[in-house]
């Protein structure tokens, strides 16, 4: 047998049919559904008189536009159109009999946090969701990617997806991260290296000592942003940490089924002599705490750098950099550490897990948020929130002056009332700094939770290492 990558192995295990022209039908093990990209798909099923083929493998949770304020049980906190979307999902979940976590359930949260937390996401699976950050689930060594609404309908109806196989890319991070440098810095640095289109047409496997050393939370952060590098999916081979994380989760196998699963999972790694279409290697020692300065996730620089000038770039990037700088209100040559911010947002499917909150709390303990700053922490799920309260993290945040919110996507994409106003500048732990992403005219700097916490204290973009 010819040597295979992890991606090849998962692909082969799920291949239902391959046509002569290479078009493949792939079986889908888990389909996650949220309120924004699913209503038209369910409507399509109804109109055609179709059902959900595998409701047992379909999991719904509202997250994108649910309010995260403490009074959200009161329906009046939602705008009319948001309420209609959430109610549509409530109804579709019930009518089609899928697993569902309504807003009132403590397990509700961002779909990419709920899936792993409940043990729906397991190694070797194929996972899809009408959301580009589905790549997150690749941290378990599963093939996970975002799909459009037509494909959501296709998966609901057939439990399969029409796919062409992608190419294989290996991203290796050698060595050991320095203190203050995190999974977020790895994933942003990789995008800074390859560009936002560098991964187009590829599935990335992240490997190397620095990746192995990451917790499951950290690995999810890395895979989450594979899409920001243009890749269809990012994955990491499962190991003892993965198995440990999965064990005992509500939907993980138990007893003999667990043993059987484990035996297969242990075969899930790329063969030594597997072929890679592209290889990117970074040294962990070369990775610094980074922030973004522009309006594309590839606009990454170490916090010790200064705002670049358009003339530092070539090709289409010259004009794009000029546009970014105008939008961001930044002057070339300004040290990034002099850039003042108005808002701090800690949360999202990139950095809304317990480890992220611990990292923020470690910096914030005994400190205060800079006066006049708006700062909020939005846990990724109700269970993350509960755990943070149990560990005393919530008290640290509240004492520091942070708002302590309920779970949801919140200011990551500002579909609910959590938005920036024009010109407002935000230190954010989310994944996109596009124009208007966090509110029309809002300016987003992406960074790790520790860096965002540091910025909250000083009111400026800050090198977290100075506060450690």
């Amino acid at each position, binding site marked *: 047998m010819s040597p295979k990558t992890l991606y090849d192995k998962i692909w082969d295990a799920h291949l239902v049919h391959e046509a002569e022209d290479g*078009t493949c039908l792939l079986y889908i093990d888990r389909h996650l559904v949220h309120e924004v990209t699913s209503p038209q798909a369910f409507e399509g099923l109804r109109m055609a008189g179709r059902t959900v083929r595998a409701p047992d493998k379909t999991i719904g949770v509202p997250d994108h*536009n649910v309010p995260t304020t403490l009074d959200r049980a009161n329906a009046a906190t939602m705008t009319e159109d*948001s309420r*209609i979307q959430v109610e549509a999902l409530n109804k579709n979940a019930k009518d089609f009999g899928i697993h569902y976590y309504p807003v009132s359930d403590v397990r509700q949260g961002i779909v990419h946090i709920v899936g792993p937390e409940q043990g729906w996401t*397991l190694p070797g699976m194929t996972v899809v969701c009408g959301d580009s950050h589905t790549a997150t689930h690749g941290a378990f060594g599963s093939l996970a990617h975002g*799909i459009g609404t037509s494909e959501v309908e296709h998966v609901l109806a*057939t439990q399969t997806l*029409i796919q062409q196989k992608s190419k294989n890319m290996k991203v290796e991070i050698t060595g050991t991260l320095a203190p203050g440098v995190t999974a977020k810095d790895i994933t942003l640095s990789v995008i800074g290296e390859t560009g936002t289109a560098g991964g187009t047409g590829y599935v990335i496997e992240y490997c190397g000592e620095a990746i192995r050393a990451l917790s499951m939370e950290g690995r999810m952060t890395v895979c989450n942003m594979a899409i920001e590098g243009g890749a269809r999916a990012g994955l990491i081979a499962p190991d003892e940490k993965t198995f440990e994380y999965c064990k005992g989760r509500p939907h993980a196998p138990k007893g003999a089924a667990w043993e059987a699963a484990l035996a297969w999972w242990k075969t899930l790694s790329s063969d030594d002599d597997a072929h890679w279409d592209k290889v990117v290697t970074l040294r962990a020692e070369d990775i610094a705490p980074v922030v973004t300065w522009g309006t594309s996730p590839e606009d990454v620089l170490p916090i010790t750098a200064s705002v670049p000038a358009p003339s530092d770039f070539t090709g*289409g990037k010259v004009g794009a950099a000029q546009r970014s700088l105008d939008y961001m209100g930044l002057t070339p040559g300004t040290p990034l550490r002099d850039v003042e911010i108005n808002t701090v947002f800690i949360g999202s499917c990139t950095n809304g897990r317990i480890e992220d909150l611990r990292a923020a709390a470690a910096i914030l303990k005994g400190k205060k948020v800079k006066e006049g700053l708006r700062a909020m922490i939005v846990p990724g799920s109700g269970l993350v929130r509960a755990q943070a309260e149990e560990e005393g993290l919530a008290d640290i945040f509240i004492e520091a002056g942070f708002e302590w919110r309920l779970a949801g996507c919140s200011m990551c994409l500002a579909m609910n009332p959590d938005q920036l106003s024009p010109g407002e500048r935000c230190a954010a732990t989310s994944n*996109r700094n596009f124009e208007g992403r966090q509110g029309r005219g809002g300016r987003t700097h992406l960074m790790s939770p520790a860096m965002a916490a540091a910025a909250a204290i000083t009111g400026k973009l800050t090198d977290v290492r100075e506060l450690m």
Partner: protein
Amino acid sequence: MEKFEKLSGVAAPMPMINIDTDMIIPKQFLKTIKRSGLGVNLFDEMRYDDDGQEIPDFVLNQPAYREAQILVAGDNFGCGSSREHAPWAIKDFGIRCVIAPSFADIFHNNCFKNGILPIALPQEQVDILMAEAQKGANARIEIDLETQTVTTSDGEVISFDVDPFKKHCLLEGLDDIGLTFEKGAVIDSFEARAGAERPWV
């Protein structure tokens, strides 16, 4: 799905790289539960000011391009979120074809599901078509999916690649779900086999 065979129309030039789906259709318009009616909000934040008035400089507000059926753009078009609202808005506006040096994966897929043809061409050829588009309403570009060609108003012919299965579906206006249903028996047997091998799934 609406068929795509031939198209002759005005192309709007948007010489920017990394045009993301948040630009194509900002999130406030994702709260719909329908597929139609998004065309007026296509490129909303570039197209209208804070009072909802048209920004005259924006390409689709210029008289020559108000009826554009083709868009010519920079590298990595459609990056960002998986929202199918982006192709829905493009289609609803009346654009049936987007030409760029490269496309983001999910957006590219979503186009085909909605009767839109995304054409990826080398930068030099996109430059030619960009210049052509900048000539305004007099320069009509012709696109023929069957022969996989783009023809400029000067008669220059440029060939493009397209996945054969996607081409077939677009030419015939085929519905993917219907096609997959024809393979129902293969899916059944896969499910039975996989269920035995990996019962925990």
